[in-house]
């Protein structure tokens, strides 16, 4: 049997305590132990970015870290970008308006990479936005609408 460990993470502002396998990656812990399914499995190698979440504000490939390594951390997923009333947050609204999701499978991770990129508060050029997204693959959009959305979001935020 695999060793179990009790962990407490703050997921999207909510404290979540679970006892689960100590070997679980943060991605599996979120999806299988905590029932948080917006971070996606895409490659398991930290290449595609579909599992990107913020760990204490830092964009992280959840498939590459063990949940036990981040015990006590604050984790933000795409659902954490929603407003308190459940409506879309500004970044999500921009993705929505710019048609930045097609199949939508990369979108939760892409949103977190974008949130991290915008957190610096500095206005990014389109080229810089693209560089910020280089760890997040999208196979549907050709990236243009995603860059449009992030541009729109930073404009609306007055960046």
């Amino acid at each position, binding site marked *: *049997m*695999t060793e179990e460990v009790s962990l407490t993470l703050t997921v999207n502002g909510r404290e979540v305590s679970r006892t689960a*396998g100590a*070997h679980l990656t943060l991605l599996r812990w979120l*999806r*299988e132990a905590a*029932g948080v*399914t*917006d971070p*996606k*499995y*895409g*490659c*398991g*190698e930290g*290449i*595609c970015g*579909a599992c990107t979440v913020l760990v204490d504000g830092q964009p992280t490939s959840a498939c590459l870290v063990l949940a036990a390594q981040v015990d006590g951390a604050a984790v933000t*997923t*795409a*659902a954490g*970008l*929603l407003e308190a009333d459940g409506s*879309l947050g500004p970044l*999500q*609204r921009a*993705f*929505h*308006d710019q*048609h*930045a*999701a*097609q*199949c*939508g*499978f*990369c*979108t*939760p991770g892409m*949103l977190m990479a974008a949130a991290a990129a915008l957190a610096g508060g500095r206005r990014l050029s*389109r080229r810089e*936005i*693209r*560089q910020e*997204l*280089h*760890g*997040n*693959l*999208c*196979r*549907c*959009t*050709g*990236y*243009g*609408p*995603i*860059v449009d959305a992030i541009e729109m979001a930073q404009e609306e935020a007055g960046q």
Partner: protein
Amino acid sequence: MTAAAGIRTSKEDELRIVRQPLPRHDQAEKVAGSTRYAGDLAFASMLHARLVRSPVPSARITARDASAALAVPGVVSVLFGEDVPHNLIWVDVPGQTVEVAALKASMEVLATDRVRFHGEPVALVIAETEEALAEACDLVSVDYEELPTVFEPDQALAEGAPLVHVAGNLLGEWDIDRGDVDAAFAAADVVVEGTYQTQTVDHAYLESEVGVGWLDDEGVLTLRVATQVVEHYRDVARILGIPEARVRVIAPYVGGGFGGKEDMTVEPYLGLAVWRTRRPVRMQWTRQESLLARPKRHRMRLRYRTAADSGGKLLGQEIDITADSGAYAYLSALVLLYSAVHACGPYQVSNVRLRARCAYTNNPPTSAFRGFGGMQVVFGYEAQMDLLARELGLTPAEIRKRNALTRGDALPVGQMIETEVLLAQTIDAVVDRAGAKPQPSGPRKAVGRGLASNMQSYGRLVWLNDSAAAWVGFQLDGSLSVRCAVPDIGGGQASSLAQIASEVLGVPMDRITVHFGDSALNPLAGTTTATRQLLMSGNAVYEASVLLRDGLLAAAAEALGEPADGLRLEDGLVSGRAGGGMSLPDALVTCRRRNVPIEALGTFFGPKGQPVVKSLQADRVFPDFTFGTHLCDLEVDLDTGQVELLGYVAAHDVGRAINPRSVQGQISGAVAQGLGMALLEEIVMADGMNLTAGFFQYLIPTATDVPEIDVVVLESGEGMGPFGARGIGEPPIGPPAAAVASAIQDAIGVRPATLPITPERVLDCLGEDLSPGTVT
């Protein structure tokens, strides 16, 4: 109500909702992260299943033993081929009523005595946890006696080659003989020839193959899977030996398809696991399994000889195509047929000799992938057009315009083009939009501009008797429900149906719900493949909506005492000419009082035609075609061979853009995928072993690899889809590789003829000696 195919048209000023760039109705959930994909559903006490795959490309299985695996705590079952009630997957396209030519190929669900490629499924392990599963899979013992291998299609077709299948390695073969080719070449002022090689590529959607299955309360085997084809429930039923009515496939929103989820992936294994254990089961293929073993795009060698007169008019084409089908048939014969029919491109040519063959090898199988054989040939025929332009001193734009197909022209196979062709306008559009060619950024840099046009069919082969059905019904409050089993794989398939219904019935988009992707509860709409859903389910929804509107307006007219043709259905109101009218709910009550249905089933039948034989000659093969042109600007580093994409313009005539944002998304996404094929992507095999089974090795374009893509949407207002729409899912993936090669040729004077165009291949074109030890 049923309707047959034909040319449809519409006028811009008559459209209210269609042509609006509305947010798709699936966007809010997708950006909230709340969309539940196939892998996101979980049951308490759910089992997990995984395949044991062959580690060698060609072998006889001499022994199998599951005892060690079964001894692992938590392992529930280990199944071999003998445990599958009907251990065969027939190569057939689900739901069709006609056999695919004379092809009767099959493969085992789980191999029993012979494996033919690295990654072929041999055993299915089912366990309580992923951990037990992983341990048990390693302990399933299979002994292999390795057999001779063959990896190159040419060698596979040669005398004495190791046989991948006992009946021989030639899987498919098509010919076209039209006009007098020898006379055309004898009369030619210029003849150009070239050999072009495309590579094996993977779909690489972000969502790997996955699903959860269970037995529902009626004992129906229910599989909620990432698929482009809910009609695979028939195949699962056949494999398990149970009635088709006892199997249900649900396709939730799919995380990308591109053809890779057209053939079955997890379905038969998931079905088997649920059926045997009577418990919910989840199966997800890892990215590594997906890259290793799921069918890929055909690698093709294209040989072209092209004859033209001094004015650049094409006189003849002589074409030879050889494709790698990998170890099993899948849809290879049909893919090759697409290649043959599209091989001369969007150009008028009267004399054609074509030979196309595909061969079994011990490589991973190849099958459907966006463009379906109609896209590889673009890399060949567009290279020939550029060569001709150079020989004759014409611009790439001019030679294409001089040969462009127009309405009434016949393709080499014999099918006449019936709809308006805006090929020349797409060429003008990309040239206009691109402006001046960029300047090199430094002394050892060369800038080039390339152009490539193409045509691609939309809708399925006409002898497959294609059909789609959809149900549209008013709720009593005037909101609208659409039921249609179309799988939505990310292209806005479901949202487009809402927009079509909204146009006809005047119900706002936010009051329409589309229930899609369920083989049991929705009318079947066929596969989300072949750029067919807008044509097929779009027309079905249109027909149902028109029937509903006409009935409702007739009833309202009677109640209002006004002529029906003076009434309009708009924003939830029935309005009369004189300003009178009634609310939609009142009109629905009126319908019910008069026994007028407030729901309707629409069934749409695709164009019909006779099946082809090996020597292709047909009045009709496809419903219709979509035409387009791409332009690429790039810079080549003459020292490193690195190619930087500077700008890209893509123009297609889509007939009518139901949702312009969805159209733009399809085009820019296809361009990015095509640019990956042009410059980066390749499944690399070494003696039958796949060396690219991970995203570390298999590189798809990132946001920094893809340039800004300028999309030009032209609307002829004419096509076979609703309101004159043409399909756009596949067509834009054709031109990118050819446009890039064309631009490199413009930059350095030599055209790369092998894909992908890596820096090494560019340096090779530049005449650099890359042999070890060379000092430059």
